[in-house]
């Protein structure tokens, strides 16, 4: 990515504070609706959006619910974002035919598992298949390797989704999330 200045407070260290920066980016893009299946990598962003009285949030039982909800929100004139981890992408595939076929804006922020310093082998197959599956159903994939990437890619993905009728997933590299502690 280029070195264009991001619309962020100067003191912010994006390598650590990208979740808060992501919140500002979504707010600047007029996203007022969010659905999620909880993920450790998204904790800060989920909390910030949940605590924002101007944002409607939905906790999901399975990730594909968020795809249909986001499609309905756009029908009603509201910009929605869906948060999940890579294992949830597999659950979404057929439901993605709804925004893809109707060219309904969709922004997914996906934290990756199974690709870097992963301790759980069961996360590896879906981690490996995430990008391929999304691209196979017609979703555009961007992969963020740094905090700056996450913010910059989400900023432009929001434009490509909500202004250019795109269905876009930003994959947030597991390398960026740190090793899961338990």
């Amino acid at each position, binding site marked *: 990515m280029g070195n264009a200045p991001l619309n962020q407070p100067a003191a912010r260290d994006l390598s650590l504070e990208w979740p808060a920066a992501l919140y500002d980016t979504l707010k600047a893009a007029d996203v007022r609706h969010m659905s999620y299946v909880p993920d450790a990598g998204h904790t800060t962003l989920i909390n910030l959006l949940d605590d924002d009285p101007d944002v409607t949030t*939905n906790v999901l039982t399975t990730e594909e*619910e968020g795809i249909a909800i986001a499609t309905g*929100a756009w*029908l009603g004139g509201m910009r929605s974002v869906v948060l999940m981890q890579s294992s949830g992408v597999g659950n979404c595939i057929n439901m993605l035919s*709804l925004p893809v076929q109707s060219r309904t804006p969709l922004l997914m922020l996906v934290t990756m598992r199974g690709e870097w310093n992963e301790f759980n082998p069961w996360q590896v197959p879906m981690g490996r298949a995430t990008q391929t599956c999304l691209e196979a159903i017609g979703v555009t994939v961007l992969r963020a390797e740094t905090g700056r990437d996450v913010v910059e890619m989400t900023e432009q993905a929001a434009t490509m989704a909500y202004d250019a009728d795109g269905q876009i997933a930003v994959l947030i590299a597991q390398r960026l999330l740190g090793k899961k502690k338990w």
Partner: protein
Amino acid sequence: MVTDMAGTIDRRAAVARLLEARNGALVVTGLGSPTYDVHAHGDSDDNYYLWGAMGGAALTGLGLAQAQPDRRVMVITGDGEMLMAFGALATISVAGPSNLDIIVLDNQHYGETGMQESHTGRGIDLAAVAGAAGFDDARTITTLDGVDTLCMDLSKPANGPRLYLLKIEARNLPRSLPPRDATFIKTRMRAHLGFQPC
């Protein structure tokens, strides 16, 4: 309990009554016969027909209801479509929209694929499930007179999402096909709500 009772309601007559009483409600339909039933009553800009994405109707309705809190949203879907989104009953209940009504046309079969018996024909009571999940109202309706009563009830304000299971006759009627162009259906619904495609 009427769990195992096969339905006798004429589905097109029931849907016609619901639509005649819609009073500005935005309608989302589940794929297959419910989509045909709604279209058979008359095409309309405020109908959003699904032709796929099985399990997505009630949830599309949830997103629409949250984005348009001052309008009522009525989802009309089938038992098989709703069963595929079993968890959605939890998600919708937690979300708690008071402007979302889900009508499940329950013939206890997968009519589109050869009339295989569904879970509702094998003892699963979807209205009881919705009630247990905390829906504001969740009932089974077995007659057209009951549908008339439902139409009156739907005109009253709700305190949360409502689900009604209509026990309809298991019979495949001639298809009444709405437009298949998903972007057209989307764009005209949005235009109806004042959002222009530019």
